[in-house]
């Protein structure tokens, strides 16, 4: 049943006023300055008795603890809002703060495991311990306050609105996993090799768009679903909203400073903003062996997608398409919409470790510590042993757990479906959901309402490497098949 539509928007800065430890990557980074502000943007929707809030955050991921604390905090601050209908998702920027993160799916972190294997006279040294750096617990509480504020403001600012859903096409995300002729795979693999066979998956240049207008038919905000994480400057040591920040700047130049942009990352666990075929190296060196190239060739292609110029390039591409499609959107505005929202828990089987894999992981860590020739260990050692420590953590977890419950939201908003998942979901799962969905457009929101890392395909598991290891995510392709089936069923029940 169609009802009049009430929509509210809010954006709150989460730019810290002190240094922070930056989340993501396998080396320790502390923010040196603010390249672009980071923020959280909330859109609250109400139609009839149904409601939905989506809050997109310039963060690497959304821990269940953050989600629960925000919901708890909102319970006595707002009236009429069902806090279970709140969706909080991450754009996956790697240039935002590290915060204390917790949730189901693991008994302990890889660092906890590594520390256990250190002999008594050995110590683990945190590099970043200074009073002018925000502590992860402080960062968590800071985020709870800001996200709560954004959602409260959006909910309380609901007004009669119009909307139009549209479709655009922009090349942003590209596959980042390279397959060689022996069928092994590698994230960031070198393609300038005779044994390079193929990229493991395709990419998706389609972007789903939803424009929102006020009563006077002035554009108030736009929802943008792109199959690419926001991680152009993922190695850098500054605060940045990556390409989404540039999209906001460029769209506000066109539509006004009060425009809201809700950036949503579609299924893109195996995607990145870089062209692995026409590889363009960083403008300034990055100390990461995975992106070093032995026989580098200068390419006339994109600007470096490791640097600020790259964020502007991607930002311009997306903003230009949104501006271009706007003229079509204004021609068919809707002011009432069917809104249906289900929140379900899906039990996903955890991906298990064999006893052989467990024993090999234990031996690798023991040998590493024995041969390290030192008694002080650091973040770098944790990064080196991350895969093995993660394998041990999973082995221990599976002794008492077979499944991991995940929160999934399915929303019907007129012709449009929104479907969430808490993974870095590989593209092909998103393709399967979108192709089988009865909705005219399906917005897939990954890294939402929980953080369970990568969900690789069967092909990726066979090719292995980072993002497809057991330790790279709580579940594997069997979980992916369940997620797709349950999501498609739930969407199609609404049509």
């Amino acid at each position: 049943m169609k009802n009049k539509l009430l929509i509210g928007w809010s954006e709150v800065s989460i730019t810290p006023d002190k240094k922070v430890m930056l989340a993501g990557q396998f080396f320790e980074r502390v923010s040196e300055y603010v390249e672009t502000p980071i923020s959280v943007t909330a859109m609250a929707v109400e139609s009839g008795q149904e409601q939905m809030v989506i809050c997109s955050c310039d963060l690497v991921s959304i821990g269940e603890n953050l989600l629960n604390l925000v919901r708890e905090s909102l319970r006595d601050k707002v009236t009429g809002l069902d806090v279970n209908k709140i969706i909080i998702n991450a754009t996956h920027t790697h240039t935002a703060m590290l915060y204390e993160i917790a949730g189901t799916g693991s008994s302990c972190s890889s660092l906890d495991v590594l520390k256990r294997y250190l002999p008594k006279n050995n110590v683990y040294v945190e590099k970043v311990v200074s009073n002018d750096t925000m502590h992860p617990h402080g960062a968590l509480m800071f985020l709870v306050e800001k996200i709560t504020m954004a959602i409260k403001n959006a909910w309380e600012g609901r007004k009669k609105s119009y909307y139009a859903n549209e479709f655009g096409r922009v090349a942003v995300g590209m596959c980042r996993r390279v397959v060689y002729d022996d069928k092994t795979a590698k994230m960031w693999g070198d393609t300038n090799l005779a044994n390079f066979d193929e990229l493991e998956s395709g990419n998706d240049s389609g972007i789903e768009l939803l424009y929102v207008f006020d009563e006077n038919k002035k554009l108030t905000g736009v929802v943008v679903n792109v199959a690419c994480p926001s991680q152009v400057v993922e190695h850098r040591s500054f605060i940045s909203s990556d390409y989404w920040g540039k999209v906001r700047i460029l769209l506000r130049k066109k539509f006004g400073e009060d425009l809201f942009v809700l950036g949503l990352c579609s299924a893109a666990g195996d995607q990145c903003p870089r062209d692995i075929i026409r590889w363009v190296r960083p403008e300034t060196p990055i100390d990461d062996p995975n992106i070093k190239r032995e026989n580098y060739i200068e390419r006339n292609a994109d600007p470096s997608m490791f640097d600020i110029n790259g964020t502007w390039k991607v930002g311009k591409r997306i903003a230009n398409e949104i501006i271009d499609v706007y003229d079509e959107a204004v021609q068919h505005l809707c002011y009432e919409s069917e809104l249906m929202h289900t929140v379900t828990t899906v039990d996903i089987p955890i991906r298990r470790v064999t006893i052989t894999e467990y024993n090999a992981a234990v031996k690798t860590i023991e040998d590493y510590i024995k041969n390290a020739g030192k008694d002080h260990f650091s973040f770098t050692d944790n990064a080196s042993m991350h895969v093995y420590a993660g394998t041990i953590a999973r082995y221990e977890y599976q002794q008492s757990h077979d499944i991991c419950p995940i929160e999934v939201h399915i929303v019907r908003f007129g012709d449009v479906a929104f479907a969430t998942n808490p993974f870095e979901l590989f593209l092909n799962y998103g393709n399967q959901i979108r192709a089988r969905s009865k909705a005219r457009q399906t917005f897939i929101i990954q890294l939402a309402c929980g953080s369970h890392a990568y969900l690789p395909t069967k092909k990726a598991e066979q090719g292995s490497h980072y993002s497809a290891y057991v330790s790279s995510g709580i579940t594997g392709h069997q979980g992916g098949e369940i997620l797709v089936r349950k999501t498609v069923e739930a969407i199609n029940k609404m049509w």
Partner: protein
Amino acid sequence: MTVYVLPQIAPAGDQFPRDLIRRGKSENNMSNNFEGMEELGTRVADAVVKKYESARAKAQSDLVFNHSVEDIYLPIRKVTQGEVEWAQKNYDELMRNYNNEQEIRGRDLVKLVDYRAIFLRKESQEKASFYKVELHAIRLGEAAFVTNPFELYIES
């Protein structure tokens, strides 16, 4: 002034202009109508126009130019005796419905072409194991052009 456009297709044997994921749900204008051609033409023209100023600023006439033409010999993909027998059996069944091949249309024509291709391959592979392909490689400053006579799959 006339501006000439020299279109070239990069490896795209397995590519086409339609979105098989969103088929009929979003971009539904790519099925043999003017709207789809206009949409694609606009995208390509926009990209060319967008880069025009940058190209003009670095236009040059003094550059390295090399052109090599080579014949290379590729192995013929062979059909097995089983495939030939399968094609013959199906061909005979198909022709029971027709007086001659010229009458055949539609899906049956696709089948006929497939069977005929298998018969022809059988004949050609008995005469030679390789066939000749003309290959051009051109260096034009910092750019390379390479040709092939195939509908080459994108991964190649």
